[in-house]
């Protein structure tokens, strides 16, 4: 009779030579790529990023040049000026190309700033004890009660027009409140987890627990929120520029081109159409990706076992 060798439950575990479970097909990036709509959105954003980077080589004209402000202004699209010209006779295509550079970099850097501030703030509130938490979060509640654009206008009204770095700081510092709240909520739940208590019990300091044991678990919601944050920053920047608080002339951003078009909307529609379309399409693309990232973060992309 065949006798089985004594079974030790303890050796059960993944076999050592088992393939790593993170094969390419199961990684989040692959999941992002697999979905047709998301892939289109990604390709679009990559293309926009290339345009921004290669602006000096792509732009057919100097975006600030005003060749003839009398005879060449508000020209309809033509071969020489595919997107037409603006009221100062500047080439709209060239301004759009340089504007992409300004709009995208403001949106991305502002998002990075608000993500960093929001994460640090939320972590501090959640781990800093009840009093710190109460004070910090009441502060955020107050700021969240003010509409973002109003808050920005209040700040920006003091200057008139802002340089690109100043816009990044202003937009970044007005966009972290929701992120702080999100991070705090997540961390409050995480810090009660056994492995956090275990780490404390083995002598880890609070800062290392925050960075090593807690932050990696908040990474996916932060990533999702940050991606949505790019879209929000794009719109906010355009809104500010449209209201006259954008980058200084002759620099162009999508918002400032839109503003120049609004006086001549009926006679020169192409001036508003190009930046408007760029904004709509890129915000849509960003949100499609963010949406998909959220699905992935919640594990819905994995094949059902």
């Amino acid at each position, binding site marked *: 009779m065949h006798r089985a060798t004594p079974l030790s439950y*303890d*050796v059960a575990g993944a076999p050592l030579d088992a393939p790593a479970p993170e094969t390419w097909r199961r990684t989040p990036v692959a999941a992002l790529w697999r979905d047709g709509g998301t892939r289109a959105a990604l390709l679009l954003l990559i293309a926009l990023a290339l345009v921004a980077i290669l602006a000096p080589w792509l732009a057919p004209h100097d975006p600030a040049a005003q060749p003839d402000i009398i005879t060449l202004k508000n020209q309809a699209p033509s071969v020489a000026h595919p997107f037409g010209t603006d009221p100062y006779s500047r080439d709209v295509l060239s301004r759009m190309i340089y504007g992409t550079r300004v709009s995208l970099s403001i949106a991305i850097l502002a998002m990075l700033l608000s993500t960093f501030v929001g994460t640090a703030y939320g972590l501090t509130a959640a781990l800093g004890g009840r009093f710190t938490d109460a004070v910090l979060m009441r502060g955020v509640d107050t700021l969240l009660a003010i509409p973002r654009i109003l808050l920005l206008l209040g700040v920006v009204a003091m200057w008139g027009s802002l340089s690109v770095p100043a816009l990044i700081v202003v937009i970044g510092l007005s966009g972290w409140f929701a992120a702080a709240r999100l991070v705090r909520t997540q961390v409050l739940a995480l810090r009660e987890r056994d492995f956090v*208590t275990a780490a404390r019990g083995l002598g880890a300091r609070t800062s290392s627990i925050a960075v090593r044991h807690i932050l990696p678990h908040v990474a996916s919601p932060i990533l999702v929120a940050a991606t949505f944050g790019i879209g929000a920053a794009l719109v906010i920047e355009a809104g500010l520029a449209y209201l006259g608080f954008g980058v200084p002339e002759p620099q162009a951003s999508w918002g400032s081109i839109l503003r120049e078009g609004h006086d001549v909307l009926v006679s020169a529609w192409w001036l508003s159409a190009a930046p408007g379309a760029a904004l709509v399409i890129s915000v849509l693309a960003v949100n499609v990706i963010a949406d998909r990232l959220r699905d992935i973060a919640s594990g819905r992309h994995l094949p059902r076992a």
Partner: protein
Amino acid sequence: MTSPSGIAASEPAASDALIDVQNLRVAFSTPAGLARAVDGVSFSIAPGETVGMVGESGCGKTVTGLSLLRLIEPPGLIDPASRILFEGRDLLRLSEREIRRVRGRRIAMVFQEPMTALNPVFTVGDQIAEVVRVHEGASRRAAWQRAVEMLERVGLSSPAERAKQYPHQLSGGMRQRVLIGMALVMRPALLIADEPTTALDVTVQAQILELLRELQRDFGMAVLLITHDLGVIAETATRVLVMYGGEIVEQASMDELFANAHHPYTQGLLAAMPRVDDTRERLTTIPGTVPPPTAWPSGCRFRDRCPHAWDRTSREHPDLFVVSGSHTSRCFLAQEPERRRAVVAEQTE
């Protein structure tokens, strides 16, 4: 020297003790009021000794264990009048920085749930190495080396490969071994093991207990084994503390406790244990549940569930009385031999 039985036990001057807990009180403020989870617990552990702490859920065992490392967080508070003397210092009076140097290095803890006490995003080797790096500032490579050695020590085969795996790739028993490795890598003088085998199936339980015994012998450390399972205590401990309602209700050597349990609660626990030679159709249970810590009954806290309660138990709160030698019990029966004889006679009937 034998103390006369029936008198209130005085706290022994435990100068040779590794850890000496004096009148530990821990309370949590809750919406329902102040929860006195641990209410005047005193005990000591000698170097190298294994002490079992047993009791139902909610009797204060885990909170006691966490208090020894000062891991109680608001809304919980350790009474500042309590004292926990360890290696000549009062742990409750150390600075945050000093207590961090005790945690994991001199006193370590193994938690109940091997599934959740490991961080899922790091390899197990990383998690053991982190402890070494925190306490010794060792280089990444040296710490990793120590982690691999420790994994081998706790009985994992191919430790170098296992160290690179993530917790979800290991079985429950292997994870508990990793947790034990994390706790012991700094060779602490005291290990607090909070229900280390509860989440594991029976065969693995036995292996883990065997491992703990072996490591304790080799490292010469003291162990406080917290469990609700008297069977686990019987296999491992030399002395037993029985907790009920945030208090120690009985304290005795393991043999004495199993032979001559005095407190009705301990007797209930022993009666509830299944035995190999059982002829009972149903296991015995202790009726009722532990009262909530926000409202301990006045008098004896066990009286609502006690088969022998009489009027005195609702009027007075019992002290720990000496039963014989070092055997103490928080029951008035220790003071009233007549009544005790009657109770025993009734039981043997």
